[in-house]
Every structure is written in C-alpha cells, then in structure tokens.
C-alpha cells in the first residue's frame, strides 16, 4: 500500500548547524503535507505545513520544501538548537481534499552541544 516514509531514522547535528530531514511519499494524490515535532513524553506538535500548489514555505527557522516530481518532502531547520532535539514526523493527506493523514515513522534529531 502507499505510505509515507523517511530516508534517515536518526540524525545528529552540531549545535548551530543547519538540519535537513527528508521524507518520501508515494501517494501522488496527496495535496497537503505537514511536519510534526515530538519531544520525549509529549504529543506531536505541528511545525509547518505546505499544500501541493507550493514548493516552498518558510516559518521561523524552519523551511519545508516539496518536490512533487520525485515525491519528496524535506524540513530544514536553521541554526539548530538543543531544544530542537526531538523526533520529527512527516504526514501527508490520504488523498486530494482528504481530512485523513498518513504518518511516517519519524526521524530522531539529536543536537550535539
């Protein structure tokens, strides 16, 4: 079946460096994508989203890039801080206009002080 996956299960980054977390998706009908952050012992927290009519969206220190040609999503975190250490999930809509999301299994980001 179609699913959302991640290229790297773990990522270690030096404090102050930029982080890039990648996600591959397979449902070409998906039109909405989200990145979530989950800190230890907490629920997933919305970071940033992007719709399929865009290829880039920026937030505070975060940027999401969407490449529909190769079905790839990435999250860039600028000047990574210790507080960024968490598991990051990508999620995609189950189909065009669908309210249901499909979640990837997550990438653990560890920031080295």
């Amino acid at each position, binding site marked *: 079946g179609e699913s959302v996956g991640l290229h790297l299960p773990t990522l270690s980054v030096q404090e102050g460096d930029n982080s890039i977390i990648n996600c591959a998706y397979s449902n070409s009908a998906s039109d*909405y994508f*989200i990145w*979530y952050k989950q800190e230890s*012992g*907490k*629920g*997933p*927290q*919305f970071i940033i*989203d992007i719709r399929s009519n865009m290829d880039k969206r920026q937030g505070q220190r975060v940027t999401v890039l969407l490449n529909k040609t190769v079905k790839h999503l990435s999250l860039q975190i600028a000047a990574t801080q210790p507080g960024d250490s968490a598991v990051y*999930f990508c*999620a995609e809509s189950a189909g065009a206009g669908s*309210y*249901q*999301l499909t*979640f*990837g*299994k*997550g990438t653990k980001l560890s920031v080295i002080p």
Partner: protein
Amino acid sequence: DAGITQSPRYKITETGRQVTLMCHQTWSHSYMFWYRQDLGHGLRLIYYSAAADITDKGEVPDGYVVSRSKTENFPLTLESATRSQTSVYFCASSSGTDGYTFGSGTRLTVV
C-alpha cells in the same frame, strides 16, 4: 482552557479490566482521532470520528470501543485490557482543512 486534553496522563490496569481513556477538545472540531504509539510502529490509527455519532475503524481497532455522543468528547474504551495494549495513546482533533492537533497522551500499562 482552550485545547485538547487527555486523561488520565498515566494509567496502570490489570489484564481483563475495562479502562476508558478520555479526550476533550474545546474547538468544536468535527474530526477526532485515536492513535496508539509503539516503538517500531509509529502512530497507528485505532478509531476516528467525523462528527458526533459517526465513528469508524482505523488500522488497529480490535479490542477497542469508541463513542461520540458530544462533539467535544471522544472516549476510548478497552473492554478487556490485554498486555499487548500497553502503549501510549494519543487523541487528536481537526477542523478537516488543516493538520491535526494532538493531546499530550495517556501512557497505559496493562499488567
């Protein structure tokens, strides 16, 4: 307080007992979801609801029951708890046009 709240935060129960996990949201979101999160499996959908009195099974519904008599509440009941249901349970809500907002989770241990 506005938001989505889950209770209890932690629960230990014995095999065979019935246990109910509560979820309450204050946004009047139409959609609500229950997930369980286990190492190696990520988030797995148990049940979801599109509106009051409308519920549907997700990926792993066996052993669970839900109800949605009011829009703001979506309790999850384990009718006869088993050790395999030891997990962290997350409730989420959505307006249907944006992403989900998750609760803080309930850590359930079945002994």
